[in-house]
């Protein structure tokens, strides 16, 4: 658009920027990433002004390149030069907020300062003289309350008017009026620098550039191509200043900026002193929440709450997931409160009776004297009973119960698709492709939405009310020992639900080393999909070992701890104990729309990403399972002719040391990379010809057929699928969050190594202790263990250097 106008929305974190952005742009938002980095980029169309784009910059404290956010913001402001800046400022903490404002003003762009939270300022009995601030900073100043939607549109429209006026009467090259905030000698040096860079920079922003050069900002000096000789000349002026003021240039600028703000505040801010000397409500809450003894129990309780909400048995997350997978996306469901019994039985009971009748018919016709049904999730025999001719005849008469007789029946999406295809009379191949392949893929993605939605909702609430920042503060001491940051805990929390949002949540960690380590380690926490694998194996192989399921969580945590210790000692992740600086926003009740925006934006990202990856992968899996190389559609019993069989055979050798080096084990493990719970589904299909009566028996028979120690082979298979790289969606996100491809490959290699070694140990050492003897791979396992122990417990790099 030729006549489009760009307005940058800039301000401190927690200044109400997001609230203002949502209020003035509404739903017309476009979310993406800033080029090359994973910082979220949002822009939106201003209400009622189709030609005006509001560019939401990340929340920042200054324009120096401390964090990725600051780099991104200043690059945008300096290079794209928006038509105006809308600077949002927290009126209750105006002194600190003005630090950024003075820097923005130096850019020389038309600027409107929106002083937010004016309702609170007034309630506190404080008053701010906007006219004095406007005069000192050479910008327009207005008071708003973003939360109450007071003055927000007016502020935005003022910025539009200012941009238009500036374009009309000044032109881009006229020198603007910018505030002069520094003392005589500094201003003198800056004037010299301005003189020498004239013509090299946009005239309006010359002062901003000059100050950055005074601060010896490497990025600016490089970008402007200032040579060594030229810089030497400028250095003289800078050094004179430093000598005179007894401080380094950067500190001089920071200090004088604050001096300027302080004197401005003395003139324009009237504080209600009585109120400000008191501890705030937020401080009093922190006394308890960050208390040295109470902090941890409080945190554990909130953790358990999330756990229960998202993944606990019979918790809302599980109930919703079951409803989504078994009813909404499958056959259908009854509207709540409309169900009633027919002939003294509810629908579930009637359905089970019919399933039994079907099983009876099938068994009798196969010439058997017993019939059974199996549990869908574990593949075990759920019920078994004797049958005779009378029972067979009665069963033959049984009719499938009609769900609509039991209440208001809403057909499931799966059933609707199947019905539509049947009515259209398509061939079996097409039906199988659509139902088992395409729809199966979509349903897999959507089936996890409830859990992820609940986790996101809960976390958005914790973040918006301010508690999440405290969690990072509380956990920092412990996690620093493993090379992580206090902020690493949040991704691991999320990882219990799903690894994809977990990896994305690592973004908030500024320290790059800690952030990368968190991305690599967070997905070792067994996620919701992995719970499906654990449940099946625990039921089929470890009935007596009740602790196996819990043990898997412990193994995951142990990997994070020891993995962290080992990584921290490598060249890639070593370094000084990282500093921890984090603003703790005042506690406040989150708004519904704020939490919703937060949750939905993340959820949308997951659905799109997962849909783009899992969907085609499921179609591919369906294809290789149902076709042979000549593209003949295969029956259920013909899987050994399938393409999948051959693909599995080619890579089976890789799994041989782990005890399940057959095509079935290989195929199941590889398909688990599409989505983890595929491990059980694929295993059930590829083991179908083992001759067992049920899927569970088939899987047991399969492991017995490939190893003299079937339990150990099964354990090895389970461990492998839990602790190798997560599903491909999480891997894709890992690659993105790690920044560079080589880092993504490093993460995957590390995860594959860990999973392989754990699996190798479980099988080979297990066989050794079970009396199966010492072999080549036993020796390899022990050698690898020694290597790992050395990696974990050797002295840190810093200590090694000192010696």
């Amino acid at each position: 658009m030729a006549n489009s106008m760009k307005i940058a929305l800039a301000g401190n974190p927690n200044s109400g920027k997001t609230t203002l952005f949502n209020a003035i742009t509404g739903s017309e938002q476009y979310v993406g990433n800033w080029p090359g980095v994973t910082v979220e980029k949002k822009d939106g169309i201003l209400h009622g002004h189709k030609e005006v784009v509001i560019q939401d910059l990340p929340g920042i404290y200054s324009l120096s390149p401390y964090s990725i956010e600051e780099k991104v913001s200043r690059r945008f402001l300096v290079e794209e030069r928006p038509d105006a800046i809308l600077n949002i400022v927290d009126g209750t903490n105006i002194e600190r907020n003005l630090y950024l404002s003075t820097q923005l003003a130096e850019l020389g762009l038309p600027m409107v300062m929106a002083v937010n939270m004016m309702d609170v300022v007034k309630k506190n009995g404080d008053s701010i003289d906007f006219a004095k601030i406007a005069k000192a900073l050479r910008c327009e100043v207005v008071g708003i309350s973003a939360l109450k939607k007071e003055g927000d549109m007016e502020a935005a429209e003022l910025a539009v008017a200012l941009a238009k006026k500036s374009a009309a009467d000044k032109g881009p090259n006229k020198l603007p009026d910018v505030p002069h905030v520094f003392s005589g000698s500094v201003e003198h040096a800056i004037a010299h620098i301005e003189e020498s860079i004239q013509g090299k920079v946009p005239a309006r922003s010359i002062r901003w550039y000059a100050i950055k050069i005074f601060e010896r900002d490497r990025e600016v000096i490089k970008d402007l191509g200032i040579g060594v000789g030229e810089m030497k000349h400028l250095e003289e002026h800078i050094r004179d200043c430093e000598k005179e003021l007894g401080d380094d240039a950067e500190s001089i600028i920071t200090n004088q900026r604050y001096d300027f703000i302080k004197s401005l505040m003395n003139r324009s801010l009237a504080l209600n002193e009585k109120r400000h000397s008191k501890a705030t409500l937020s401080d009093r809450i922190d006394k308890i929440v960050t208390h040295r003894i109470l902090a941890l129990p409080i945190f554990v309780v909130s953790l358990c709450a999330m756990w229960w909400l998202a993944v606990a048995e019979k918790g809302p997350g599980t109930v919703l997931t079951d409803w989504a997978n078994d009813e909404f996306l499958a056959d259908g469901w009854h509207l709540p409160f409309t169900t009633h019994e027919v002939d003294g039985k509810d629908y579930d009971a009637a359905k089970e009776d019919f399933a039994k009748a079907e099983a009876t018919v099938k068994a009798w016709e196969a010439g058997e004297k017993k019939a059974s049904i199996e549990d869908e999730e574990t593949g075990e025999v759920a019920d078994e009973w004797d049958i005779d001719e009378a029972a067979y005849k009665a069963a033959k008469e049984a009719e499938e119960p009609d769900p609509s007789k039991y209440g208001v029946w809403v057909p499931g999406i799966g059933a609707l698709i199947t019905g539509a295809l049947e009515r259209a009379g398509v061939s079996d191949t097409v039906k199988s492709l659509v139902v088992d392949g395409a729809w199966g893929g979509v349903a897999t993605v959507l089936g996890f939405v409830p859990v992820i939605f609940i986790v996101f909702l809960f976390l958005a609430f914790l973040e918006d009310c301010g508690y999440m920042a405290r969690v990072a503060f509380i956990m920092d001491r412990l996690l620093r020992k493993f090379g992580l940051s206090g902020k690493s805990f949040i991704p691991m929390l999320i990882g219990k639900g799903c690894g994809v949002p977990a990896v994305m949540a690592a973004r908030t960690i500024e320290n790059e080393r800690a952030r990368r380590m968190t991305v690599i380690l967070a997905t070792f926490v067994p996620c919701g999909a992995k719970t499906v694998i654990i449940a099946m194996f625990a039921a089929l192989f470890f009935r007596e070992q009740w602790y196996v399921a819990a043990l898997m969580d412990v193994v995951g945590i142990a990997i994070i701890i020891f993995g962290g210790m080992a990584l921290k000692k490598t060249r890639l992740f070593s370094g000084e104990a990282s500093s921890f600086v984090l603003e703790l926003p005042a506690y406040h009740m989150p708004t519904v729309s704020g939490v919703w925006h937060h949750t939905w934006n993340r959820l949308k990202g997951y659905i799109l990403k997962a849909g783009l990856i899992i969907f085609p992968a499921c179609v591919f899996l369906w294809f290789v399972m149902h076709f042979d190389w000549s593209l003949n559609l295969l029956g259920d019993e013909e899987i050994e002719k399938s393409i999948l069989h051959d693909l599995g055979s080619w890579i089976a050798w890789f799994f041989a040391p782990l005890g399940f080096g057959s095509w079935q084990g290989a195929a199941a493990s590889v398909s688990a990379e599409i989505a983890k719970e595929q491990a059980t589904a694929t295993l059930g299909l590829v083991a179908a010809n083992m001759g067992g009566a049920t899927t569970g028996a088939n899987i047991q028979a399969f492991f017995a057929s490939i190893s003299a120690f079937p339990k150990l082979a099964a354990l090895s298979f389970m461990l492998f699928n839990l602790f190798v790289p997560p599903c491909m969606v999480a891997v894709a996100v890992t690659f993105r969050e790690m920044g560079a491809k080589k880092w993504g490959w490093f993460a995957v290699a590390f995860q594959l190594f860990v999973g392989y070694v754990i699996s190798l140990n479980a099988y080979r050492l297990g066989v050794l202790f079970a009396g199966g003897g010492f072999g080549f791979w036993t020796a390899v396992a022990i050698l690898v263990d020694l290597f790992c122990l050395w990696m974990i417990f050797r002295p840190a790099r810093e200590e090694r250097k000192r010696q």
Partner: protein
Amino acid sequence: MTLEAVKEGERARIVRVNGDEAVKRHLGALGFVAGTVVRVVGTSYGNMILAVHESRIAVNDATAGNVEVDAV
């Protein structure tokens, strides 16, 4: 003395900030500059929460040890 020595509830005036340039710059932006008075709102195993201007900033012991202060 450094911030580490300041007890809960006490105030101190910042004299200078040492340590890593990037962290120093970040602290400066948050208001940790010479002359600013900060109050220790709470401590937890060496980590502390500080009141700086109207905001609350959490720092760990390593960071607190880099901030030189005077008693007020």
